[in-house]
């Protein structure tokens, strides 16, 4: 596959995946660390944070579409109100910003929930010991919380990696991969080639490459995360 179009879509896909991983994972860990540990706050936080995960994906796209429209949506109205020239249907930069914001909105909670549950399963004894040793909160995070969370974090990372490669419904409903081709990710391109132009041969080849890219990335990540334990 030497076609430029495929390379472009792949490049966009990788950039998108990298961006959302860089935003969602630290944000998710940060929120999980700062969430209340007991009392009514836990319930409120958990229930509210889980809400975006539960909305079917086609609805997510449709609601963000309206939510971000400059003339009738809250987000578009607000951003224009503070002086940005915001228009996600025409400006590629804002289209990107919207798709990334939508994904962060949709999936950061997944990282939060996993990390929070992982954090809660650290026995209190660890914290008490570290307190006696006079560890700073950074040291507690680096040497106790992070290693204990590693498993959960691996799952969260891999899940986000795979799902971000599969992202189709949301950007498609949002603005059909446009303006132009600026938010056409791999899966959207694939469907365009396969069903739009009915080039089934190239589309099949693309999907095989696509699958191997995901497989390779996951394998590398998995091996890296698990390396310490096998040694």
């Amino acid at each position, binding site marked *: 596959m030497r076609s430029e179009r495929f390379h472009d879509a792949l490049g966009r896909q990788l950039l998108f995946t990298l961006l959302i991983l860089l935003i969602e994972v630290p944000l998710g860990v940060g*929120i999980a660390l*700062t969430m209340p540990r007991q009392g009514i706050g836990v319930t409120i936080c958990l229930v509210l944070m*889980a809400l975006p995960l539960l909305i079917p994906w086609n609805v997510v796209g449709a609601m963000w579409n309206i*939510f971000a429209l400059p003339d009738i949506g809250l*987000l578009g109205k607000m951003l224009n109100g503070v002086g940005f020239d915001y228009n996600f249907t025409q400006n590629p930069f804002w289209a990107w910003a919207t798709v990334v914001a939508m994904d962060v909105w949709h999936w950061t909670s997944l990282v939060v929930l996993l990390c929070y549950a992982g954090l809660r*399963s650290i026995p209190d004894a660890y914290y008490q010991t570290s307190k006696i040793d006079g560890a700073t909160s950074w040291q507690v995070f680096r040497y106790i919380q992070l290693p204990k969370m590693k*498993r959960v974090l691996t799952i969260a990372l891999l899940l986000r990696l795979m799902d971000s490669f599969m992202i189709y*419904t949301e950007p498609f409903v949002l603005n059909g991969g446009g303006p132009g081709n600026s938010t056409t990710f791999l899966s959207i391109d694939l469907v365009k080639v396969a069903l739009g132009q009915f080039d089934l041969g190239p589309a099949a080849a693309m999907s095989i490459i696509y699958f191997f890219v995901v497989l390779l990335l*996951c394998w590398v990540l998995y091996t890296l995360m698990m390396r310490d334990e096998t040694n």
Partner: protein
Amino acid sequence: MKKITWLIPTVYIVFLMMPIYWLVNMSFKTTNEILGSFTLWPNNFTVENYVTIFTDPTWFMGYVNSLTYVTINTIISLLVALPAAYAFSRYRFLGDKHLFFWLLTNRMAPPAVFALPFFQLYSAIGLFDTHIAVALSHCLFNIPLAVWILEGFMSGVPKELDETAYIDGYSFPQFFFKIFIPAIAAGIGVAAFFCFMFSWVELLLAKTLTAVDVKPIAATMTRTVSTAGYELGLLSAAGTLTIVPGAFVIYFVRNYIAKGFALGRL
């Protein structure tokens, strides 16, 4: 410092709530008002969208169908994943790491790839258009997920817990149900929630494998797209209602997630 730690989740929740508020807001408007003007709250407050959903059986049966297969799927996934995850976390056998990773590759291919094989298979054995068909097909991506999450939590439990229990004279089933399951309750809660969630929002397989009798809600929703454009009011009302069952699930498992892990059980 105390103030800052409260601020981060609060800001985040506000960020989460804005689009959801907009969704709820839209659900009380008529489609014309949504598209016609910018209003922070509905000018012509209407519950008509909800009335449509609750009086039209094709709409509310969508919810019932979805809930049924999602529940079946969550139960199957957990029952299969618990022993599997235990084996992966406690025993070493030939190729265990590879098998473990291979499980996850099932999740990597988009569900669209499996739609046609499933369709043919289920048509051949007469499972087409039944709840169990959708539930089983969703196991494809939920079981690997559940195994991975549970394995993570099980490996967090020290092996000494197993050993002390055996010394205390517990048999394996006794140990597994009385000690081990409570110890990883947080993991089970999370896994159950994620199974529920991924099965709940999955549209393509559910749509392909059903025709009339068990049409899921997400498929029913696509009806709002007609030649006249989106029926946005109705779509948002339906969207708002899809959040409700999941919110109940997370409400019930919240204690397991937040419970933490009791090391000193003896």
